């Protein structure tokens, strides 16, 4: 076999692999992580658990509102993908933004922020203990960088969107490399 042909075959194989296991664009986490469970404070100021989603599938992102670049970029892609879904699916899917920066993200700040993206996006945050429990459950982390002179600081956080089904079982991790069409395709398939 000549080299160019081998190259083409490898490229085709890679393209297949890039499509992910079982044809998902995202990473399937079915059966790999425990079902959704948390105790947090919602954007209305109430203490809530996973029951707040009332048995609806959830797309959840961990971030912070003082994140000007990747958080809005990711949430905007998610919202754009949701808009491509058939209407009934759009209404079923719950969006959640969990701030890992409770010091700056009080309920009001969270509400302003999430409402700017979608009325179906719920803002949540909690104590460090509550947030650590939840992020560890999904094998992700967050951390704070050194404070600047004006007291501001950066937060490192997970870049993926976690999708849970109506039974609160974790199903997909939508990595930040996915485009709107790929996210929409995965969500549509999951919500069928």
């Amino acid at each position, binding site marked *: 076999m000549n080299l160019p042909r081998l190259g083409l075959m490898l490229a085709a194989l890679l393209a297949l692999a890039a499509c992910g296991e079982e044809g998902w664009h995202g990473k399937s986490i079915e059966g790999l992580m425990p079902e959704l469970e948390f105790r947090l404070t919602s954007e209305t100021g109430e203490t809530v658990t996973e029951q707040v989603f009332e048995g609806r599938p959830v797309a959840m992102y961990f971030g912070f509102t003082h994140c*000007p670049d*990747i958080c*809005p970029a990711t949430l*905007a892609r998610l919202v*754009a993908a949701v808009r491509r879904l058939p209407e009934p699916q759009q209404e079923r899917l719950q969006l959640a933004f969990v701030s890992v920066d409770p010091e700056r993200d009080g309920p009001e*700040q969270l509400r302003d922020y999430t409402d700017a993206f979608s009325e179906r996006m719920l803002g949540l945050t909690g104590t460090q203990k509550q947030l650590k429990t939840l992020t560890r459950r999904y094998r*992700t982390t967050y951390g704070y960088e050194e404070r600047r002179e*004006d007291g501001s600081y950066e937060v490192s956080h*997970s870049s993926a969107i976690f999708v849970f089904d109506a039974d609160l079982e974790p199903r997909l991790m939508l990595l930040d490399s996915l485009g709107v069409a790929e996210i929409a395709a995965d969500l549509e398939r999951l919500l069928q």
Partner: protein
Amino acid sequence: MKIVSGVLLVIVLLAGALWWVSDMAPAEPIEIENPRVRLVPGGAPMAGYFSITNHTDAPIRLVSAASDAFGHVMIHRTVVTDGGARMEHQDQGVLVGAGETVAFEPKGLHLMLMRAQRELEVGDAVDVVFGFEGVEPAEYRVTFTVVPVTSS
């Protein structure tokens, strides 16, 4: 013979014109395209995006950005590694090679615009003053447009 020399003359004139045009210095040594600020509600920092082209024949360095509309402006890069995201302050500034274009775009280089001094709305204009090394004048004022948070 007359025709041949006529054609030759036209070719020489055209080539001359082309050479003259290509040798003309661009109107501006630095070109900033599509400058925009993505509106974030709730007083949180916003990101500024644009692309910058260096039309000079030497590298230049973008070293600072400031705006009357914001308390503080920093040059940042978002770095995504292994499922995690964080921002890196570009304390050396950003180098733009001779004739090159560098894009400030979502999930990459961005201006971090902190502490808005007034309530901004989509469609507002915000002036940013860039500071450069390696080019004169060293300061460059650019008008950014405020765009919705859901835009890219």
